């Protein structure tokens, strides 16, 4: 996804001379095409994320559209106050890229696991939080950002991600995209979790359940109308995200159900335990949190059996 990001930015920057790219010394073998195409509009600020956000704010104050690039933990948390007092407070088009949310940097350990970036970003009403699910949707998001006056936080997958079947790159603000129809329950997912969620839906289908799957890339500050309308059609909603279960997609679903007066029951799938205490690959750490196709299918299936027994 990182390559798609930079390729698209190179294209966009050709027609929009305001676009700049700043990195805090990350993005080896990724950011170089932008540097080669626009050496004047690229800078490596060094290992200094707080300053990078301040510089981006200053650039935007004189008319530029800076993209700032780092690993998701660093671009969201290290400079959180600078994001808030900078582009959010000044309402400026700074684009904050968080690479590799969740457990993408598995073996690098908990300092590199971005599990609260979505929650932190979502609490700022002026900051648009977007988690594209695949390359095509990322392109659509970058195109949509051309018209966004305020700042945005983009969590972009580190590695390549399979195309999400049925999504076809669709993206609209606050809008869940239905990628699989179904009547029994709704699996609502975001970002890299779209693919395992669809696989889990297949497994559940083979057990006799008919789950719908929707991808929500824009996690709004408040419940949106399209999400309320979608959730209102399902008795059971399962939110799937590679993040702590508090503050991100699951919380948005809970807020939507509560404030919309909906009757849906919600299950939040995400990281419910604390920071990892063992080293492990991305797949290992995801599986420990139940964030694989099999893990999701098992948990949802068990919940449904309990529900049937209780009925």
């Amino acid at each position, binding site marked *: 996804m990182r390559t798609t990001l930079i390729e698209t930015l190179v294209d966009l920057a050709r027609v929009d001379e305001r676009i700049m790219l700043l990195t805090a010394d990350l993005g080896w073998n990724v950011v170089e095409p932008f540097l080669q195409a626009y050496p004047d509009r690229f800078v490596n600020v060094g290992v200094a994320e*707080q*300053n990078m956000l301040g*510089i981006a*704010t200053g*650039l935007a104050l004189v008319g530029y559209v800076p993209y700032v690039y780092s690993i998701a933990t660093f671009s969201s948390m290290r400079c959180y106050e600078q994001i808030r007092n900078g582009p959010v407070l000044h309402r400026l088009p700074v684009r904050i890229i968080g690479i590799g949310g969740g457990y993408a940097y598995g073996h690098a350990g908990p300092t590199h696991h971005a599990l609260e970036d979505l929650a932190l970003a979502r609490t700022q009403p002026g900051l648009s939080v977007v988690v594209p699910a695949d390359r095509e949707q990322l392109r659509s998001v970058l195109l949509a950002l051309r018209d966004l006056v305020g700042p945005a936080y983009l969590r972009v997958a580190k590695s390549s991600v399979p195309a999400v079947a049925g999504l076809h790159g669709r993206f609209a603000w606050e809008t869940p995209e239905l990628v699989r129809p179904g009547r029994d329950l709704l699996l609502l997912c975001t970002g890299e979790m779209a693919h395992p969620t669809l696989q889990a839906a297949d497994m559940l289908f083979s057990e006799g359940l008919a789950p719908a799957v929707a991808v929500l890339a824009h996690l709004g500050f408040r419940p949106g109308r399209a999400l309320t309308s979608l959730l209102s059609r399902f008795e059971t909603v399962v939110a799937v995200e590679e993040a702590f279960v508090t503050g991100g997609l699951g919380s948005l679903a809970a807020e939507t159900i509560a404030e919309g007066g909906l009757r849906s029951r919600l299950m939040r799938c995400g990281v419910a335990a604390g920071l990892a205490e063992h080293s492990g690959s991305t797949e290992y750490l995801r599986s420990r949190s139940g964030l694989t196709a099999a893990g999701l299918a098992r948990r949802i299936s068990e919940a449904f059996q309990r529900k049937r027994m209780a009925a």
Partner: protein
Amino acid sequence: MNVQHGLNDSREDLGKIAATLRRWIIEQSFASKVGHIGAALSVVDAIAVLWGAVLRQPGTKHPDRDRFILSKGHAALALYSVMRWKGLLDEETFRGYCQDGSRLGVHPEVSLPGIDASTGSLGQGLSLGCGMAWGLRLRGSSARVYVLVSDAECNEGQLWEAVMFAAQHRLTNLTVVVDLNGLQALGSTGAILDMEPLGEKWRAFGWECREVDGHDLQRLTSALSAAAGDRPRVVLARTILGKGVSFMEGRFEWHYRPLDDALYATALRELKAA
């Protein structure tokens, strides 16, 4: 369009401006029952020089105006005062300082026309200044950027990140003024986190550094209006917290303390006699 200096005052005029601003600071902080008087009085001479004789078209919407960032945002009353003197704020708006619904808070906000950046959290203004200076240079503008920071603000790590960036990229259109009054919220800077020798630190980081008496209008003017060299410039302005009001001078409690009736009368009397 030609960009003009705000004013070509004589030294005497700058003195009169600074005296007026001091009176307004005392009057308004008393009327609004708000502190941070000491900081405003400590920077007011530098602000009078910058806005009176150095900055080109400050506070306007001109794309090539010089920018001013009050990174030590708690001295905003000095900035509002100079904006009133420049005619950018009418007296009624100025009198709304810290009233409910006013756009004039303890720290400056960009929602107030004429303010180039919202500040208040120390250590962040210079990074904004770096971005502005770089962006303005990139688009071929002759505009310059001035950032006023406090000495205690130099405790913040982010400030030094910005110092290194400006030197690395030779942002010669960037000038910093450090308000070196030697006091911070809870005591003397030397006792809390000694930054001295501060000038040597800035020089070691690749800046051109000038040290002046921050209440000497002539020296401030020449340091701040000197032609740009080949590196960013910092002017260490040695100042006195609460300068101009005897019972405030050099006393750290005037970082926060508001005036009562008796002290207000004394302060005004002293300023009128000066």
